């Protein structure tokens, strides 16, 4: 069982989360210990160890089919792990899920509602099942959350006629219908227009301000980079990197980017010099060089090899590059 992350990247345990929110209850909002899930012969998730500190906004990154949703479902107690254990707000799941889930809001695998009911009726049905909501508050809570996600005008239309974005907003509303300590959002921006995406970002920001822990899974890297304090990267069912965002980006900056048309030659030359070199994911032809000789020496090597160096800069690693590299190495 290989549980370790790739050697190039330290899977340092996550530091306690941001300034806000650490006062709330358990220091760890969600935890996975050696989680493994097998569907028939397919291993969906393998040996995942993860801790989500209270108050953090964790971006869960990974291509489609990398196991994000399966991991989330196991954390919520919707699926039993084949092996390993999960914990939610200090309670083992699924055994004690009933104690944790009232304080957890979730949007998993897209919004699920009944087409013959209006958005409001659908939410009322969800609200009726919420343990922490008094019966007398249901109508108010539903009205308020509809406003919060920007669906007040469409609340009394049938769900059948909703656009993809409106459905997504309603799903978000169901997750936020009562104040939560933990909100889990699986691909919340799917189908949303830019304004919708901004709204989701705003809501995540509000939740973070309010001290809640948020787990957002997304394949949109910019999304995660803009809103998250922590990141977990999944690839083919295993966790390839976790950590808080600044230190992850820091760890990824020990190299330089060489902008050049002679990509192949550059890679060859740098690898001969003992460096790790690979093509940049950016649109311009460029090569990322890591662990090589110091920059001046490297550049002179390249020039001597006949590479036309248009530009050489210290790599300003963004999440996109980090992600590309991680998934390329393991994939």
């Amino acid at each position, binding site marked *: 069982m290989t549980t370790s992350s790739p050697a190039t990247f330290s899977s340092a345990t996550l530091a306690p989360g941001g300034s806000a929110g650490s006062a709330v209850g358990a220091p760890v909002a969600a935890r996975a210990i050696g989680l493994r899930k097998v569907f028939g012969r397919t291993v969906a998730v393998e040996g995942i160890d993860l801790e989500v500190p209270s108050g953090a906004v964790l971006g869960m990154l990974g291509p489609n089919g990398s196991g994000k949703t399966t991991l989330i479902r196991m954390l919520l107690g919707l699926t039993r792990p084949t092996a390993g254990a999960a914990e939610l707000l200090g309670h*083992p799941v*699924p*055994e*004690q899920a009933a104690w944790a889930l009232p304080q957890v809001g979730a949007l998993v695998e897209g919004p699920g509602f009944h087409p013959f009911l209006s958005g409001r009726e659908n939410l009322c049905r969800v609200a009726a099942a919420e343990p922490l909501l008094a019966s007398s508050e249901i109508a108010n809570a539903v009205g308020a959350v509809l406003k919060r996600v920007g669906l007040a005008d469409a609340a009394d239309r049938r769900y059948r006629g909703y656009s993809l974005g409106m459905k997504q907003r309603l799903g978000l509303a169901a997750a936020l219908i009562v104040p939560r300590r933990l909100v889990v959002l699986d691909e919340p921006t799917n189908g949303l227009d830019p304004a919708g995406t901004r709204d989701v970002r705003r809501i995540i920001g509000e939740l973070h301000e309010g001290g809640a822990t948020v787990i957002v899974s997304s394949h949109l890297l910019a999304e995660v980079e803009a809103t998250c304090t922590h990141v977990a990267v999944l690839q083919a069912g295993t966790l390839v990197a976790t950590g808080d965002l600044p230190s992850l980006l820091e760890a990824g900056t020990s190299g330089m980017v060489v902008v050049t048309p002679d990509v192949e030659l550059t890679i060859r030359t740098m690898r001969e010099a003992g460096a790790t070199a690979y093509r940049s994911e950016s649109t311009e032809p460029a090569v990322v060089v890591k662990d090589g000789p110091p920059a001046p020496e490297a550049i002179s090597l390249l020039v001597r090899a006949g590479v036309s160096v248009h530009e050489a800069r210290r790599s300003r690693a963004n999440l996109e590059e980090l992600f590309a590299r991680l998934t390329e190495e393991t994939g």
Partner: protein
Amino acid sequence: MVKRTGNAGRNVAAGLAVACVVGLGLLAVPSGAGAAPELPPISAEDLLASVAKAKPEAFNGTVGLENALGLPALPNLPQAGNGDSTARIWSDGAGRGRVQLPSPQGERTLVSDGTTFWAWDSSTRTVTKHSESGHPGAKPDVNATDPTGAATEAINRLRSTSQIRVDGTAEVAGRPAYELVLAPAAQERTLLREVRIAIDSEKRVPLRLTVLSNGSNDPALQLGFTDLSFGPQDEKLFTFTPPPGTKVEEGEKHDQGQRPQRPEGVEPTIVGDGWDTVLVAKRPEGAPADKDQPDKNQPDKDRPGGVDLNALGTPVSGAWGSGRLITTAVASVIVTDDGRIAMGAVPEQVLTEALAK
């Protein structure tokens, strides 16, 4: 432990499912198949004498008929065909009674209120009314003669052709009973193996009649109580008020309930005695040569003779002539082309001998 509750709950649920499957099996086990009860031994004579002495009592019960005689179902008498049927019976022990014959689609009700005999048929929604004056109760008045003597006499008469014995005990409708067995004597040429009568050990009334034929372990006919309780019955049961809006017909002179009237002028002759008695009669209607359908307009479908016998049986012939042979589990019938009918609980050969006489 909280962890265990999930598994415990699943185990309980699985247990419930299994228990219910078992329960379904138990429901399916026929009741009344209990062990034979222990009863003090009794001789056939004493048993029959006590039956003759028994006073009729008020009771209600359900009688089940398991018919495997192999007869064709007759239009107005579905009970004749193979299959099970039930009847619900109430009696006040003093001549009044009520019988209900339920069928899936309806019911026939027969009520004898002491002066009038009512017959209701839900399929036609008609009531037939017969006066019972001059018609004695269904039971012959056995008390008039000395019961012990009558029993002895009956047994003596039967002994010439039968073996009579008490053969163990049985439980019928939850009541312990003696099994009285009548078996044909060795010289009797019959299709029947034996007739068993279960007699209530306490009330000394017959509870079940079983007819067993040669070559089969399953009864050809079993008529018995499936449910029986003694005690006073609701008076209302022994009255009948025709429901509003139904037509009430005055019946002809009441004759033994459902039994069809015998056609006039056709007196059967009896050949032989005992178990191999053969009844030879003239075919009631139609010329002997009439091998076609009997006249369909004849409104006597419920007479055995009214059934198209030509369609039944297999052709046979011999010195006596030719005809068709109909065999069932317990009886054989030959309908000759010259219009005679011979029937009995006997093999074919006995019938043809009787016809040849």
